């Protein structure tokens, strides 16, 4: 076996050539996989591989982080996360990264085998959590988390336990309602079959009365227990004077209930309890399915929220470091922030020099070099080297805290939208009441008030918009499922409805249209110098250096590397002294002029708002020019073009330098663009657009950062892109789980297709209702006809709903390629 064809013994992915060990019995793609493999074999858990090969097609390397999780042992954390029981056991719920198949579940539930003191572990694949019961006297929580980490699943404590418990109770209550409605509906149907049989073959009055009374008892039980939510919904809507689908449903259910009861007492006329039971059951099933689908989306978002670190490294007076929860930080404390970590609080750097990425906070794409005395903002990322920060403001007093307050305010301003089904329900009620009144008058004149009331009530009952009531939740849940597979998590179904019509879309630049990271975009001049430059830059942590080091593959070794902060770097490669740095620095150091052939290139780079980096080789005395910057995402141009083709007005609104924004806007052909926009101004821009907006075209915000969060919350639809800040996740209605903006095009398509499915359902349900209403007005409706028409219309609608969003391509590439032809 050679390095090229070797695959990892743990996850089955190819082994990188650098990690291939020719003499080893087993090969691994990464250290994490190796650790996990050894643990599994040492603990008698080899079965994992058998199950995995049987069930899993997705290879994933182990997500081991090697973190020691000591912040989990802090009493402040424990009191909020861990539930202790009287028998000396404790229970904690942890969210796990990388759990995705049956083999993972099997392995995680074998946790007691590898961690003494753990009593049991129950995994939940849908939510990607594990509930661990353990004895705190025998094992620390951090050790539990470490053990899971060593099995290849990075563990994060699940926040918001109380909220989750409440939601769980709600879910159970909902399910119980569905079950009770189902059981009652089934039993009423049995009784009704006897009654319908009696209609045709004859039935003694005693039996007829018995069955009718039983039907009434069960029917009223359906109305007061599971069916109550339609009445409470309708009353709430009436109180706020909003149209809601619950109103016509409640009207039909109430008429059926009252009329059926009266007729049971009178012993003559129709009772409609079988229809009532089945309708309540079907409607509840539809709502429950949508509820479940939406819960899945919000659970996934919750997982991502938990992934952000919530602890900081505190330096105490003796200079010792300790991981503590962020909540315990106070002004005046000193914290250490490692490279790659985000700052836990606003403060001043007291020791160390580093580069700070403020892109999520302000939208600036160019990282800032910061020295002792410079400020650092909570939420910004420390890029290059560890620094000590004296805390000045924490929590709501920090810049990020103030921005979050803005988000909360924006959410309050968000106008609730009237869903299509509810809007129609408004007209529906009026039409039905007019028709019922007309029927009553007409039949009273022909046959007297008793018959008038009977036919009018029959009309109210058979025109119950149940098909419509089922259409929206069913089509939405099918679409939500499809969207999740296409890389979008939709938190509110209303977003799906709004996106169907093209409107105005505000796009953030840094991290949304661009990758949000510095990369090499273009090179000119002597290319032989590039790998030498990469070799030198490998030893630096500056984001530009890392971009250059990553861009050019180089086996060369650099010696005598010497860095001038903020200017450049020198070193020797292959006995040639190499200079890499800003144009000024390199020209000044070499005492030369820029070669004439590179001069126009330099101007072009500056025009494109890229940072020029000059490389000089001493032996060859040649120059190379590298342009680095935050590059446009590969799918950005195609996606914005598709959106424009669909009639969307696009606008770029960024906190970055106007010149950079202009250059990006030019590249993807967007006319309206604004740079240097503050988070507050972004939210105001959305507000202005909404005020001047006439008609129902949606105002959409697409962004990734904390600086976009208020605008995301304020917009009709807020879309947070992959890799965005926690705040943007919370504020947005839609979250893209794939990098790039292509899913937005899909979202628009999915939205349109879903709405057309719902409209089709609506037309069908109107047809059924017209037939039913005509029959009722003609006085031809019987309970049997009602019992047939109503479920059939509902089932037709459910069958059609499975089509929702069907013609939207499930893969990213398909959407783009179909557009570019």
């Amino acid at each position, binding site marked *: 076996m050679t390095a090229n064809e070797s695959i990892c013994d743990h996850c089955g992915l190819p082994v990188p050539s650098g990690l291939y060990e020719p003499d080893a019995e087993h090969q691994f793609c990464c250290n994490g996989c190796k650790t996990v493999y050894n*643990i599994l074999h*040492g*603990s*008698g858990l080899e*079965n994992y591989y058998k*199950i995995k090969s*049987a*069930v899993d097609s997705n290879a994933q390397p182990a997500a081991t982080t*090697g*973190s*020691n999780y000591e912040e989990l042992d802090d009493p402040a954390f424990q009191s909020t996360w861990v539930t202790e029981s009287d028998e000396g056991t404790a229970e904690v719920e942890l969210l796990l990264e990388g759990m995705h*198949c*049956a083999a993972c*579940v*099997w392995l995680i*539930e074998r946790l007691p*085998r*590898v*961690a*003494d*003191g753990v009593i049991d572990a*129950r*995994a*939940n*694949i*849908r*939510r990607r959590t594990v509930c661990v019961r353990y004895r705190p006297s025998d*094992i620390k929580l951090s*050790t539990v988390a*470490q*053990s899971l980490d*060593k099995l290849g699943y990075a563990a994060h404590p699940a926040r918001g336990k109380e909220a989750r418990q409440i939601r*769980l109770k709600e*879910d*159970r209550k909902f*399910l*119980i309602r569905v*079950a*009770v409605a189902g*059981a009652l509906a*089934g*039993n009423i149907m*049995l*009784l009704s079959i006897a009654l319908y049989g009696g209609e045709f073959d004859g039935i003694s009055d005693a*039996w007829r009365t*018995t069955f009718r009374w*039983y039907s009434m008892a*069960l029917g009223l039980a359906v109305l007061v227990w599971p069916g109550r939510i339609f009445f409470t919904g309708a009353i709430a809507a009436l109180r706020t004077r909003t149209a809601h689908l619950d109103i016509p449903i409640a009207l039909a259910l109430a008429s059926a209930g009252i009329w059926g009861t009266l007729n049971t007492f009178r012993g003559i006329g129709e009772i409609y309890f079988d229809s009532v039971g089945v309708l309540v059951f079907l409607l509840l099933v539809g709502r429950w399915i949508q509820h479940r689908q939406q819960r899945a989306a919000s659970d996934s978002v919750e997982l991502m929220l938990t992934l952000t670190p919530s602890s900081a490294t505190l330096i105490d007076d003796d200079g010792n470091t300790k991981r503590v929860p962020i909540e315990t930080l106070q002004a005046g404390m000193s914290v250490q922030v490692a490279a790659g970590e985000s700052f836990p609080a606003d403060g001043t750097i007291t020791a160390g020099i580093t580069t700070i990425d403020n892109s999520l906070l302000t939208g600036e794409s160019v990282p800032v070099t910061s020295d002792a005395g410079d400020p650092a903002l909570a939420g910004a990322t420390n890029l290059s080297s560890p620094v000590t920060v004296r805390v000045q403001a924490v929590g709501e007093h920090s810049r990020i805290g103030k921005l979050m307050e803005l988000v909360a305010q924006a959410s309050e301003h968000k106008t609730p939208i009237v869903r299509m089904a509810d809007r129609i329900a408004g007209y529906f009620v009026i039409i039905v009441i007019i028709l019922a009144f007309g029927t009553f008058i007409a039949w009273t004149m022909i046959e007297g008030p008793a018959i008038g009331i009977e036919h009018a009530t029959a009309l109210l009952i058979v025109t119950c918009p149940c098909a419509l009531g089922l259409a929206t939740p069913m089509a939405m849940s099918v679409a939500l499922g499809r969207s999740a597979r296409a890389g979008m998590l939709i938190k509110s179904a209303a977003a799906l409805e709004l996106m169907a019509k093209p409107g105005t879309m505000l796009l953030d630049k840094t991290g949304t249209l661009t990758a949000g990271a510095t990369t090499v975009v273009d090179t000119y001049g002597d290319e032989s110098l590039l790998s030498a430059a990469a070799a030198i830059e490998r030893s630096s942590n500056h984001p530009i250096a890392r971009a250059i080091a990553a861009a050019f593959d180089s086996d060369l070794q650099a010696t005598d590397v010497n860095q001038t902060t903020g200017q450049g770097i020198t070193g020797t490669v292959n006995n040639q002294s190499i200079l890499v740095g800003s144009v000024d620095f390199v020209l000044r150091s070499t005492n030369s002029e820029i070669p004439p052939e590179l001069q126009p290139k330099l101007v072009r780079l500056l025009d494109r708002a890229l940072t020029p980096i000059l490389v000089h080789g001493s032996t060859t005395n040649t120059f190379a020019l590298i342009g680095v910057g935050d590059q446009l995402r590969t799918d950005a141009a195609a996606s914005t073009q598709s959106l424009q083709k669909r009639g969307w007005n696009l606008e770029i609104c960024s906190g970055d330098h106007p010149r950079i924004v202009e250059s990006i806007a030019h590249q993807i052909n967007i006319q309206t663009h604004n740079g240097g926009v503050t988070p507050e101004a972004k939210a105001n821009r959305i507000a202005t657009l909404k005020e001047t907006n006439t008609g129902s075209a949606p105002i959409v915000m697409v962004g990734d950062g904390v600086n976009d969060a208020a605008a995301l919350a304020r917009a009709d639809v807020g879309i947070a892109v992959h890799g965005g800040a926690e705040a943007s996740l919370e504020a947005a209605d839609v979250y893209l789980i794939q990098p790039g903006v292509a899913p937005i095009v899909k979202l628009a398509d999915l939205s349109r297709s879903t709405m057309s499915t719902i409209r089709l359902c609506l037309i069908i349900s109107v047809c059924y209702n017209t037939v039913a209403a005509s029959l009722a007005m003609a006085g031809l409706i019987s309970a049997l006809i009602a019992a047939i028409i109503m479920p059939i219309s509902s089932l037709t609608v459910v069958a059609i709903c499975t089509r929702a969003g069907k013609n939207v391509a499930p893969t990213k590439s398909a959407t783009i390629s179909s557009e570019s032809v």
Partner: protein
Amino acid sequence: MSVVYIMIPVALLLAGLGVAAFIIAAKKGQFDDLDTPALRAIFDDDETPPEHPKEKSITNDDA
């Protein structure tokens, strides 16, 4: 036929018992997770634990 007078309440009572059992199960959280139990069905249940679990424990390793 008069047996029906007894049988209907009996049938309803049985249905009621079923619903009650479901409610108790739902309240105990048996329907909270509808996906993972389906996966557990494929695991073998005749696993024997390792002979010396203490020795093979990883909890005392260095992190």
